């Protein structure tokens, strides 16, 4: 369950790609411990960029970002202890699974993170076996990632993050391009992780799943600013807001029913 304890705090973030194309404009956001947060918005509104900032992969031009009470900057992540602590506590599932599965076999792929963070080979091997079993992909362990289907790659990508048992999980468009069965499996997994007390942030424009995967929703406008925030039910009921930020077509309800 979400608590009042702030875990990730962003204040007045600004970011532009190539110093020309704005992606975030004056974005302030606080993620609380144990919370499941959905970042909603149309394509190109800045959701994925914000996730990358939250994971310390890119750094804002303006504003500040604090995680677990420590500022996250390019400089602070140069510190080995800070870097190791931050990387082990925050996991990121990329939208493009091909970018995330780069090792020669699935087993090596899942072992990559724990080995980088200094776990012993024996402990890593045990964790890898547990994750392969949990995700029901043990038969893929010695396959090369390029031989896998899209759904299998997504499972492996999630496994590579879960094996590190991070406190915070960042999902970029988790349900995109997944078949219904894999989508259902993923939503159930997110629900289970939420019950286990993990803090989860999703970036998505899949409105069908928001109520199941999030306790709070933050809506981004196409001007790269936060347009609104509230409970998923409240956000989904505000059809004018959703139409304004280009998340639904005017005249179609977010639950897929055409209005008379």
């Amino acid at each position, binding site marked *: 369950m979400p608590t009042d304890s702030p875990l990730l705090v962003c204040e007045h973030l600004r970011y532009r790609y190539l110093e020309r194309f704005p992606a975030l404009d004056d974005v302030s956001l606080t993620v609380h411990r144990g919370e499941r947060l959905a970042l909603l918005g149309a394509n190109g509104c800045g959701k994925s960029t914000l996730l990358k900032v939250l994971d310390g992969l890119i750094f804002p031009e303006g504003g500040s970002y604090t995680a677990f009470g420590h500022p996250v900057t390019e400089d602070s992540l140069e510190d080995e202890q800070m870097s190791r602590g931050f990387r082990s506590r925050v996991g990121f599932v990329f939208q493009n699974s091909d970018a995330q599965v780069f090792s020669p076999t699935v087993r*090596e792929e899942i072992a990559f*993170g724990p080995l980088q963070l200094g776990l012993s*080979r024996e402990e*890593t091997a045990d964790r890898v076996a547990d994750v392969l079993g949990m995700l029901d992909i043990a038969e893929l362990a010695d396959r090369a990632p390029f031989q896998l289907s899209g759904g299998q790659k997504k499972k492996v990508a999630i496994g590579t993050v879960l094996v590190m048992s991070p406190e915070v999980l960042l999902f970029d468009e988790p349900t995109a391009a997944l078949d219904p069965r894999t989508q259902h499996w993923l939503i159930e997994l997110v629900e289970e992780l939420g019950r286990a007390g993990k803090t989860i942030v999703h970036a998505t424009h899949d409105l069908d799943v928001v109520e199941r995967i999030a306790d709070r929703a933050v809506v981004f406008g196409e001007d790269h600013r936060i347009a609104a925030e509230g409970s998923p039910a409240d956000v989904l009921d505000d059809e004018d807001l959703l139409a304004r930020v280009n998340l639904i077509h005017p005249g179609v309800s977010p639950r897929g029913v055409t209005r008379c």
Partner: protein
Amino acid sequence: MVSAEPRPTAEPRPTGAAPAWLLAKDVAMCPCGCIGTRRRGSYLAKTVQAGSTVLGQVLFGDEMAGRAGLLQRVEPRVKIISLVWLLVVAGLAHSVGTLAVMYLAALGLAAASALPLGFFVKRVWLFIPIFTGIMVLPATLSVVTPGEVVWTLWHWHGAPEGFTAQGLHGAVRVISRVAVSISLVVLLTLTTPWVRLLAALRGLGVPKIFILIVGMAYRYIFLLLKSVTDMIQARQARTPGTPQHDRGARAFVGASVGALLGKSAQLSEEVHQAMTARGFTGDAKTLRRSRFHAVDAWYAAAVLVFGVLMLIGDHVLAHR
């Protein structure tokens, strides 16, 4: 055949609305069902086929590296050191007889490692005539290697010119040496999974950044191969009739190369971010720990003794 209906005139329309020509019910194919002339497949189709062939070969290679054979049981580091030793021996050998014995030994090792001999021989001999053969051809002629002319091609000031016995002997020796060397390298690559080969090279002191770059290049080559195949197939799907080998086709190849370069750059940035997100700081660690077994010691000793015997035998043959 296209419908003969008059083309609808362009009128101002609201943004986002489909234009009238898109909604017209044109007939895409000739309704009479006639067929045109056929042409041979274009270079684009051949590229797609070649892409699948490469993937097929890689899967076949992985399958062979996983077979229960002699060399598959030997630790990769031992195999690499043994290979270097045997390459040195082949480089020092002067007698074609010594090289022939070494080639037979390579065939024996291939058989003991459950490799299909036909495939193994073809893989080695397919390229030797193309590369080495052409390279040594001039050296077989009397103008380069003087000696006893065994096959006269022309006369120069009354003297016969052509292939010489000395030139042919030298060419056979070079080709044999190359064949032995390539056979040994092919034996190593066919019996060792790629990842273990890279780990072994790292274990032998090859810089980790080199191993990392080679390893990732190998993995992502398949992803880029898929991108190339997708681009070509997307073009084929939009090319009515037979593809032409014209300026447009050349422009397409240029544009594809540019697009692929852009995709690779984007992918490499994302991959680096995905690695950083999981704690990568430049030092890649692997799960598997290699250990030496009795079979490694036996294999290393046998290769050492074999090499020494080959060198002694070669010395005897050369001074006979």
